[in-house]
C-alpha cells in the first residue's frame, strides 16, 4: 500500500491546467505540420500556418492557445495499491482547477443552473472527473481542457446491429458534415462503439487521450480508423470549413462488447487545439 497526499494531486492539477492550455502537445503540432505539407488548398495552407504560429505565440507568451480554456475534464487512473490521504479527493481536484485557472489567467467558462440563471461559477469549477481503478501503486492524472465548440457537436446513436460498419461510417460522417466549422477543424475524431449508451460516449471521449497517429491495437478497428480518416478528408470541409483536404488529423475508435440487440456509436470531436497533459505520481 502506497500513500499519496491529495494535496500533491491538487498541486499537479494547478500545474497541468496551465501547461495544457499554453502548450500544444508535440504530436498534435507535428500532425498539423504534416497536414500543412500535404494540403492543396492555398487558403487552408494559410490557416494551418496561422494555427502553428498561434501555438508558438501561446508558448512564448504563456497565454492560452484558445480563449475557450474549456470544461476541465480530469481522468484519474488510480492503482489499487494506492491509499489517498490528507483530505477529500474531489475537493483537492476542484481546488487545483480553481487555483490553476486563476494563476494562469485562464477563462472561467462554467455556469451553474444550466437551464435558467446560468451564473458563472467564477473559477471554472467544478471539473468533470473520471476515475478508474487499475493495477499497481501509481496514480496517473490526465487533464483535457475541452472547448465548447467541439463538445457541442457530440452525438450518440444506437444503431441496429445489422447496420454494421457501414452504419458507423455514415453516422460519423454525417456528424462531421453537420458540424461544419463549429468544432474547429482540423479535428481529432473520437468514436466509441459498443457497450451501453453512457459507456459509448465515455469511450469516445477516452479515445481522445491517444497520441495522434496511434491506432487501436485491433487490426480490424485500426482499418476502420484509416478508412474513416480517408473519407473525412475527402469531404472537402477543410480547416475552419473554408475548404480543403485537412478536415481531420486522426480518427480514434475504442470498442467494447455490447448487447445482442444493440450497436451503440458515440462521437466526440476534438478541435485542432487538442490540449492534453498527463502526469504520473
Amino acid at each position, binding site marked *: 500500500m502506497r500513500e499519496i497526499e491529495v494535496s500533491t494531486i491538487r498541486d499537479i492539477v494547478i500545474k497541468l491546467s496551465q501547461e495544457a492550455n499554453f502548450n500544444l502537445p508535440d504530436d498534435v503540432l507535428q500532425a498539423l505540420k504534416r497536414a500543412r505539407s500535404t494540403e492543396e488548398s492555398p487558403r487552408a495552407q494559410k490557416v494551418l500556418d496561422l494555427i502553428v504560429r498561434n501555438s508558438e505565440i501561446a508558448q512564448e507568451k504563456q497565454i492560452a492557445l484558445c480563449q475557450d480554456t474549456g470544461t476541465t475534464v480530469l481522468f484519474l487512473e488510480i492503482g489499487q495499491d494506492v491509499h489517498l490521504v490528507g483530505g477529500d479527493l474531489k475537493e483537492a481536484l476542484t481546488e487545483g482547477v480553481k487555483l490553476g485557472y486563476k494563476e494562469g489567467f485562464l477563462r472561467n467558462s462554467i455556469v451553474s443552473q444550466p437551464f435558467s440563471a446560468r451564473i458563472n461559477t467564477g473559477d471554472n469549477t467544478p471539473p468533470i472527473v473520471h476515475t478508474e481503478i487499475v493495477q499497481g501503486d501509481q496514480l496517473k492524472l490526465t487533464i483535457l481542457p475541452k472547448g465548447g*465548440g467541439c463538445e457541442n457537436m457530440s452525438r450518440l446513436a444506437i444503431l441496429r446491429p445489422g447496420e454494421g460498419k457501414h452504419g458507423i461510417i455514415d453516422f460519423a460522417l454525417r456528424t462531421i458534415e453537420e458540424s461544419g466549422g463549429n468544432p474547429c477543424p482540423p479535428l481529432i475524431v473520437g468514436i466509441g462503439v459498443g457497450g451501453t449508451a453512457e459507456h459509448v460516449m465515455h469511450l469516445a471521449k477516452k479515445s481522445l487521450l491517444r497520441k495522434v497517429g496511434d491506432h487501436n491495437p485491433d487490426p480490424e478497428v485500426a482499418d476502420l480508423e484509416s478508412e474513416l480518416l480517408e473519407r473525412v478528408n475527402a469531404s*472537402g470541409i477543410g480547416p475552419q470549413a473554408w475548404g480543403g483536404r485537412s478536415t481531420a488529423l486522426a480518427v480514434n475508435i475504442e470498442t467494447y462488447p455490447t448487447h445482442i440487440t444493440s450497436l451503440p456509436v458515440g462521437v466526440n470531436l476534438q478541435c485542432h487545439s487538442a490540449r492534453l497533459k498527463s502526469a504520473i505520481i
Partner: protein
Amino acid sequence: MKNVTTPLSDEAIAELKTGDEVLLTGVIYTARDAAHRRIVEGIARGESPPLDLCGQIIYYVGPTPPRPGAVIGSAGPTTAYRMDPFTNQMLDLGIKAAIGKGGRSKEVRDSFVSHKAVYFGAIGGSGALLSGSITKVDIVAYEDLGPEAIRRLEVEDFPVIVVNDIYGNDLLEQGKAEWKIEITPPTNV
C-alpha cells in the same frame, strides 16, 4: 488582402466578396450568448440596448483575462450559430457585420443579405495570435457577465475573411464544392 477601417461604409461592404481576406482597423464590440440574450430580452421589455449598435461590428468572443501589462488575453472567435436566434434583431438594430467561426443558418444568411451586412470568419482556436491585433479594451456593458460582458475593442489589422457577402455567397458551401472528392460508398464487406 483588403484593408478596411471601421465603421464599415455601404460602399466598403459592397466591395467585399466571399473569400476576400480583410484586415480590420478601428473599433469593434464584443457580444456573445449571454449579452445577445440580454439585449433581445431588454428590447422585448421596451428597453434600449446598452449601446448604439447602428453601423457597428459585433465580434463573438469571450476573452481570457489579460496578464499584467497586457490589454487582453487570448481572444479568438466563438461558434456563431448560437447567435443565430438573435441575429435578425441585431441586424434590425443596425449592425453591419459580425465576426465568428462556423456557418450560419440559411435564414440568417438571407437576413445578412437583406440588411446589406456581412459575416466575417476569424480562425477559431487562434486566440493567442488574434490578441496581438487588439490594442485597447474597455468594458462598456454587462460587466457582471465576466468573459461575456460587452467590450469595446480597438483593433489594428485584425485578420478576417468574408464568409457571407451581401450577394448571397457562402464560403463554407464554396469551399466544400471546390475540395470534395467523390469516393466509393462504404460497404459492410
